[in-house]
């Protein structure tokens, strides 16, 4: 298969780890070599969190570097801006239109940048702004934001919808399967 580098960026606690697990398992089901890299610990406590998923015939480095990401999956607007240099020029950039203020903004020491989506759209062709929080709510849980985002991403790959749904069914806890599949479909339908 064509090698694909996916970067997932967000704020600690947004469920990026589950996202990377689902993406990794989808990669395996297509027969690819897969590496997923994440950082645990202090950076998770509400800090900026980045996870890398790489798949292809043979993957060496588990991390993605500037200008290398085929897909930038952003769970929060400011984090999209922070990591935008990592996207390829023709990357698929998917941004959840959610704003979570970091402590320097909360305390008034820094300003949250304005019009982030417009600024990114001005530089990149393939940008999707997604109201994932509302879609997750509609699917039954605000915690399903991550699976809505996976749905949006899935539509932009050649991997069939059934493969994704099958992996989600096997990866999430049984009691959350229905909500998550519903959330996936809402993202996929965009």
């Amino acid at each position, binding site marked *: 298969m064509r090698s694909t580098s996916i970067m997932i960026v967000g*704020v*600690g*606690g947004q469920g990026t780890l589950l996202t*990377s697990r689902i993406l*990794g*398992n989808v990669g*395996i089901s297509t027969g690819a*070599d*897969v*590496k*997923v*890299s*994440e*950082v*645990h*610990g*202090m*950076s*998770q*406590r*509400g*800090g*900026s969190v980045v996870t890398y998923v790489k798949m292809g015939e043979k*993957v*060496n*480095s*588990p*991390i993605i*570097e*500037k*200008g290398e990401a085929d897909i930038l999956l952003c769970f929060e607007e*400011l*984090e999209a*801006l*922070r990591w*935008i*240099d990592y*996207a*390829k*020029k023709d990357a698929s950039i998917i941004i959840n239109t959610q704003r*979570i*203020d*970091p*402590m*320097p*903004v*909360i*305390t*008034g*020491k*820094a*300003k*949250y*940048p304005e019009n982030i989506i417009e*600024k*990114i759209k001005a*530089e*990149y062709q393939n940008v999707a702004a997604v109201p994932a*929080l509302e879609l997750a709510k509609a699917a039954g849980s*605000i915690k399903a934001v991550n699976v809505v985002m996976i749905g949006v991403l899935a539509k932009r790959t050649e991997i069939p919808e059934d493969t994704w749904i099958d992996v989600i069914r096997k990866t999430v806890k049984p009691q959350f399967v229905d909500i998550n599949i519903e959330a996936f479909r809402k993202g996929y339908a965009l």
Partner: protein
Amino acid sequence: MKKLMLGNEAIARGVYEAGATVATAYPGTPSTEITEYIARYDEIYSEWSPNEKVALEVAIGASVGGARSTCAMKHVGLNVAADPLFTAAYTGVNGGLVIFVADDPGMHSSQNEQDTRIIARAAKVPVLEPSDSQECRDFTREAFRISEEFDTPVIVRLTTRVAHSQGLVELGERENVPLKPYAKDPGKYVMMPAMARKRHVVVEERLARLAEFSDTTTLNRIEWGDRKIGVITSGIAYQYAKEAFGNASFLKLGMVYPLPEKLIREFAANVETIYVIEELEPFIENNCLRMGIEVKGKALLPLIGEYSASLIRERVLGQKQEKLNSINEEIPVRPPVMCAGCPHRGIFYLLKKLKLNVTGDIGCYTLGALSPLESLDTCVCMGASIGMAHGMEKAMGKDTARKTVAVIGDSTFIHSGITGLIDIVYNKGTSTVIILDNSTTGMTGHQDNPATGFTIKGEPTRQVDLVKLCQAVGVDRVRVCDPFDLAETERIIKEEIAADEPSVVISQRPCALLKNVKFNGVLKINTEKCTKCRMCMRLGCPAIVDRGTHVEVDPALCTGCDLCTKVCRFNAFERLGGENA
């Protein structure tokens, strides 16, 4: 069949397949998951030990008793366990003994960036270094074999990117390894001078044999490519180098101590320019230079932080990645914060308000050093808060002690705070120690510890009674408070710092992320009552947001802990209900 596994999970799998029966650890990022995954295997006895020293001693005991045994820790944990390690190198093993140590280049979750290879060399213990999840599993099995063949503890060194990356792993079956017979052997296991002198000779002979082994083992291999460039590398740096140098020749080292000198010479003789690519210390590089082999390494690449393929391309090959956009926005940093609902917030709010000197320790509460709480003055190592508060009192006098407190978590206090407290009592100090008892080991992801009353398997066990423990070592003034009862906690802290004797304040409230912690629904700000005085902003709660024109509560983050209602003088916070209700 191949399975996607975290490096740490693959280590656990290797331990299982190697037939080990005893595994110990103290949690520490990035090593923690090794033992969490081991605990899922019923065939292996596993435990969270109070600290790394005890953990290693238990593993050594199990090895002497004939079992394949393991111990896992982060790099700084090896400092705590160094005492047993250095002498276990002399005694050697009975059942195989493998120690997993995870370094943290870039300090994602650590207080320093030390390199375990140097400690291992000082302890005269061989080191293997895997570069992906498959090697984590394979090298673990081989490490047990080496340990038994050479009668030595073996260290498997990981770094964050290996420990916390997932890769595909081919699994094997568990070996059935019976307990080796136990026989008294004081010449081997009682390290007093007469015996130790003889054992040191054995250690040096063993290292020579290990060096020969390093030249022949398949753990070290040459990948011939274009011979203009030869790259000597190991661990995660190998993966970065493969991407950066492509078709060059590689000497990929899986055994990094002792190094394979013959193999290095053979490689060096057949390539034009040699680069050594290794994160942190120039361990391989200095060894090559000592052998008289000209290599380039730290002259081009940093001693500090993590490497990457692009860093190597830029520094070594002069290829810089161009920026692909013209976005030049000022981007506010997003430092980690204490969670909404965190019980530590109440204590740090008060310590700042009272303008105290605060010696700190290792855990989530180290975040109390950051804005806006900004009340932690020091953080050095596990348990240091207590000794340092005592030291400040002895240097600066009792007036300082009346303005100083040590703060330490429950798990950290058990780890190495108790001895510091005994020191205060014994040497007539008057310091005040606040134990932040949140009923778990928070920062590493909620491991049980002796103060929680549960084992690693979640089985109920005898719980250390912190009040009785402090009383038993001679502290007469032990007080318990709820950090969300700000008025009462403030009164207690004031009384205890004023007291002319040692005191301990145990601040009890469970971590807000624990499953059994429930509040009664989220809050909102009544804008008619709010005077925008921004007292609540001093709490540094991520759920309370200053919008410039007004202050509001983010309902997605608010836990409903109510702490804000206690600092608001205008009763502007009202309960909304909602998902957490």
